């Protein structure tokens, strides 16, 4: 048998051609350089967004300072006199998001409990998928359905009912004072639609938290003679509390940033009333409505200043939520329920 002929390859490692050939053959350095570059891009992007809006808001920040965001009873938003106070928008965002959370919480808990504890095995995936589908519907379509169907048929009558029932109560009445416009455009409408939109988020995470709880906890509770509800309410939900809290905060984060559906149903006015039944305005809505036709550079800067507040709020809440959900993921014992 013939010996294998070795091809003579130059071993001169300092020659340029060798270096080039080596890179082409292995290409590890360019590859990891590429990876690091792309990874760096992600981090850069996050900083870039923050930086850009910070800079863009410089003019307004210098002029309006912190008074921009402070609560005030008669706020103005006047591009002509350049008197900008963002409190109505901040209030609108917070009021609608927190109300949406209050409405969505029991419903999401109910769904999560049903899907993880009560639902028959074969129904679990299809139902879970349908709940996820709620999250896939675009915001504009929620808005469209809101304007022409949900508001006239449900929100407007509900609003009139609420103003009758709650309007005259001592403290709570402030939230329900005044009457809801005929069109139904109000903070209530925004809160209701937002609650539908964030329910899938909270429900899905809560369901996962419950499913991850080891079955030994359930067994312990049942072996003591608990009913199913007692097990869920007194053992499982307290066990998963921090994860559920994380889910709730995640939902809050989503509600804060929602733009289109809210813009279409909230009425877009800075009336001055704190009532849920009256039209309002949110931070994202004012940006969406006014930015393209901003009056001048200061107006633009003021709007970007609003976006800075919104950005900081969303990012903080998002980080808080992730921390809580991560904490639960690390805490759950080895044996998870199949």
């Amino acid at each position, binding site marked *: 048998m013939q010996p294998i002929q070795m091809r003579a390859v130059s071993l001169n490692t300092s020659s340029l051609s060798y270096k080039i050939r080596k890179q082409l*053959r292995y290409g*590890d350095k360019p*590859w*990891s350089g590429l*990876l690091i570059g*792309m*990874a760096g*891009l*992600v*981090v850069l*992007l*996050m900083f870039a*967004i923050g930086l*850009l*809006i910070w800079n*863009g808001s410089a003019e307004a920040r210098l002029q309006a300072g912190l008074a921009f965001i402070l609560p005030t009873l008669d706020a103005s938003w006047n591009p002509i006199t350049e008197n900008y106070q963002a409190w109505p928008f901040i209030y609108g965002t917070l009021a609608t998001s927190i109300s949406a959370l209050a409405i969505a919480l029991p*419903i999401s808990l*109910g*769904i999560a*409990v*049903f*899907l993880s504890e*009560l639902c028959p095995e074969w129904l679990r995936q299809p*139902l879970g*998928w*349908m709940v996820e*589908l709620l999250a*896939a*519907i*675009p*915001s*504009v*379509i929620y*808005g*469209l*359905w809101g*304007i*022409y*169907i949900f508001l006239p048929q449900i929100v407007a009558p509900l609003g009139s009912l609420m103003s009758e029932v709650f309007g005259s109560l001592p403290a709570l009445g402030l939230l329900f004072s005044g009457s809801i416009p005929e069109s139904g455009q109000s903070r209530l409408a925004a809160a209701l639609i937002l609650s539908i939109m964030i*329910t899938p988020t909270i*429900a899905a995470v809560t369901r996962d938290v419950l499913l991850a709880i080891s079955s030994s906890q359930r067994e312990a509770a049942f072996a003591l*003679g608990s*009913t199913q*509800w*007692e097990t869920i309410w007194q053992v499982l939900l307290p066990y998963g509390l921090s994860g559920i809290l994380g889910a709730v905060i995640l939902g809050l*984060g989503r509600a*804060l*940033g929602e*733009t*289109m559906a809210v813009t*279409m149903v909230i009425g877009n006015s800075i009336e001055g009333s704190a009532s849920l039944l009256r039209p309002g305005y949110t931070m*994202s809505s004012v940006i*969406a409505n006014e*930015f*393209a036709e901003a009056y001048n550079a200061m107006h633009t800067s003021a709007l970007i200043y609003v976006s800075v507040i*919104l*950005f900081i709020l969303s*990012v903080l*809440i*998002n980080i808080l939520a992730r921390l809580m959900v991560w904490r639960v993921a690390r805490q759950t014992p080895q044996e998870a329920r199949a």
Partner: protein
Amino acid sequence: MITNQASANSLPLIRPEINYSRRKLANKLMLSFTGLLTLAALAPLVWIIGFVAIKGSQTITWAFFTQLPRPLGMAGGGVLNAIEGTLILTIIAAFFAIPPGILAAIYVADHPNTPLGASVRFSTDVLSGVPSIIVGLFGYALVVKTQGHYSALAGGLALAIIMFPIIVRTTEEMIKLTPRNLREGSLALGAPEWKTYLSVILPAAIKGIITGILLAVARASGETAPLLFTALGNERYEIGQIISSGIRSRQGVWSIFNRIIEQPVDSLPLTLFKYSQQPYPERVNQAWAAALVLIGIILALNIIARLWVNYSSSNLKGK
């Protein structure tokens, strides 16, 4: 305090019959309540999709898909500009989001505990929580302001930022799911890392990655807020016309391409939004029809992604 022996008889005796029926009632009530709440939550789903289907189908005609909008107040016309706009925007967004997304995900999957890896994870979380309107502002500041005009490019970039975190997250998870020995086997044969990834790992994870891409596309195609001040909208946009007029006036490929991506464009959700605000019933009807098309596309993407998931997970198990 009591001792073991004495007064053991003063211990309360457990008598289940005291609150037995109350416990059973509470149990039945609350459990049925959760079922009810689930139905209540799913009701809007059926309601919305139902109404969109009913109202939208009343206005869907062949012309709807193939014509540009008619002037305000006139009946008829279609949303071809929006459909093509959505297409272009999605292509641009995919172009900018997918390669960097996959590469960044590979880095994170390989080096999860380095400072850069942790930062990427953190940034992905933060990015996914940024309100879409702010993404639009970013796109405006970065592209529109510097170029001096609205464009599909700006809109596509904004949508890319929205798609990005989704792609990074799903790709990272899919890569982590591929068995370790695939990678080790390839490296042991002397293959460089880039080849290992391109020929071995990515093909193994491809179905999951495609699922992630489909879901990201579904999400991006439904976004409106980022496009409000980047793509802006354009009722005269029609790619066929651009290409044919470009050929007729002998413009180069590059300039035709430019004319396609450097104009403002409409998208289905954007058109939907604008029409819904207008006082003309024909426009509102078309908004419903556009909603139907949009939901159709998104549902289709979600269903395909689901089927991919089932297919891919059973594939992985087979290995």
